[in-house]
């Protein structure tokens, strides 16, 4: 008897595990099918590439956010980091620095801003929500100071920089290529390397991981730096794509990124999560935006629908 009930419990656990992994994917497939059924334009290759390019900015931010949330933290400053690093990069380009150098400088600026978050959180022992809420307004304020509230324009008509946000490689938008590369690297980092195991360990039980000899401060620095760098990468794409650095760029982007992570099945409590899920979560949000636009749904209703989808995702997550 005991053995039998144990095995039932096991299969149940297995089934819920499978559901956890496949749930978001099934949701995405259902969504795509429904939208395609209502408007066949959706499935056309040009629209799918268009959709992927729209998703790339949110997906990149959400990849970084996944690491942060797995450690049990949160990063509200991503949108402001995006704007500040975008504006500073535009300034660097305007000073005549070669685009490739400027792009790397921009990524480093993003990483440094993220590192600052990490330091405030670990050394200052400030809750991540509060620390990044503060840096969110600080970074936004600095962006406004630096840009004097006006967009920076006309800094570069160099092919390399324009290519970053507006280019096509083999007919695939370059931001999508960047998203794929970032995904590959971060997937290996999170799921195949010791750093990833430490990230999960801290989120699962910080004290236990400390006893096990994990230097949690270092892991956290890196995690927030990754989040900052991914935001900067998204910011560079936007700056290139919009041909201007907007002081208000990225406002409220943290919410879309968190939504993508949560829809993808990563637990806000930390310790559990998958970056594949985040990619699917970002695709679900992107498909909703794109699909509802194609179907001509009013933007007011779109916001309602997006909220409902997030709630459904969290409810499904809790049921497991």
């Amino acid at each position: 008897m005991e053995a039998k009930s144990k095995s039932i419990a096991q299969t149940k656990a297995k089934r819920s595990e499978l559901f956890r992994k496949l749930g978001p994917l099934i949701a995405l497939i259902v969504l795509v099918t429904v939208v395609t059924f209502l408007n066949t334009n959706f499935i056309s290759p040009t629209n799918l590439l268009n959709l992927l390019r729209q998703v790339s900015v949110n997906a990149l931010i959400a990849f970084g956010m996944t690491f942060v949330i797995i450690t049990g933290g949160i990063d509200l400053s991503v949108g402001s980091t995006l704007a500040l690093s975008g504006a500073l990069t535009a300034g660097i380009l305007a000073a005549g620095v070669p685009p490739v150098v400027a792009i790397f400088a921009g990524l480093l600026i993003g990483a440094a801003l993220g590192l600052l978050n990490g330091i405030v959180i670990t050394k200052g022992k400030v809750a991540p929500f509060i620390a990044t809420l503060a840096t969110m307004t600080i970074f936004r304020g600095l962006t406004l100071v630096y840009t004097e509230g006006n967009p920076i324009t006309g800094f570069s008509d160099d092919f390399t920089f324009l290519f970053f946000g507006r280019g096509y490689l083999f007919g695939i938008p370059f931001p999508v290529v960047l998203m794929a590369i970032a995904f590959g690297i971060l997937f290996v980092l999170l799921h195949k390397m010791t750093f990833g195991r430490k990230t999960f360990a801290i989120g699962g039980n910080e004290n236990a991981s400390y006893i096990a000899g994990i230097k949690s401060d270092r892991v956290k620095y890196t995690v927030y730096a990754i989040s900052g760098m991914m935001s900067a990468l998204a910011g560079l794409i936007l700056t290139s794509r919009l041909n201007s650095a907007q002081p208000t760029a990225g406002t409220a982007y943290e919410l879309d990124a968190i939504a993508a992570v949560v829809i993808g099945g990563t637990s806000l409590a930390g310790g559990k999560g998958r970056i594949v899920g985040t990619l699917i979560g970002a695709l679900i949000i992107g498909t909703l935006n794109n699909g509802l636009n194609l179907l001509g749904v009013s933007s007011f209703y779109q916001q309602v629908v997006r909220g409902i989808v997030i709630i459904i995702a969290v409810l499904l997550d809790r049921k497991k």
Partner: protein
Amino acid sequence: MKKLFGLLTIFTMFLLGACGSATLEGEQSDESEKVAEISPDEMTIGLSISTLNNPFFGQLQEGVEDKAEENGTTVRTVDAQDDTATQINGIDDLIQQGVDVLLINPVDSDAITPAIESANAAGIPVITLDRSSEGGEVVTLIASDNVQGGEMAAEHIVELVGENAKVVQLEGTPGASAANERGEGFNNVANEKLDIVDSQSANFSRSEGLTVMENLLQSNSDIDAVFAQNDEMALGAIEAIEAAGLEDIVVIGFDGNEDALAQIEEGRLDATVAQQPYEMGSLAVQAAYDYVSGKDVENVISSPLELMTAE
């Protein structure tokens, strides 16, 4: 680490190998430049609005939709929620739907350029509303004639308080085209007929209008009239004037928003130069019909302004 380096090497090689097939957005297709003639009832108009949270743009949208409905034209609207990236994505979606004409009310004149270039590449004619675009090919811009509006305000002040009266001007955000043009129009008339004792920026904001006006009242006695380059600043200025116990200063705003119209009824605000967003939307749809049927369309179409007073 080895795994990561391996991955990086592969990506680098992939990128290097792909250099030959790199192209930019807006230059990949060359569809025919000629616009096919379509009758209004077969036409689909794509409308991208900067934000529907502002009643001004809500009325603009209504103007477009009502005019289109009269003629049996379908309208697809996307809301940019004041975000430049959201706007570009929305316009991409409209292009994907194969709309016949795009009406765009840009969030930002520079950042809209790539979207307009994409529309150009797809062979879809673009009409901009209220704000212009810095780049790309646009059929026409529908906007209020701000210079004329500034002149109207100055003329009205002359009418109310006579020539050589002492006036101050509250300017909008420095560099904003609306601020420059309204100021230019006002100065055209005021330099000759009025005495401008001071002119300062209050960034189109009500609270700054209040503080700037307080300062102006401190440094200048006997001001006869105030011209604010938008209603918000005018409403702030009124608060300052009333708090100072002064009553016979004439205040004129610009825009004609609901708050301002209500204050005119109450007799607190003397007048406002009202823009007519509904009319603007209607004019844009008419311009689309004209363009598609092969008629000549002017580069800039002025949307009418109206001086609203208590009468």
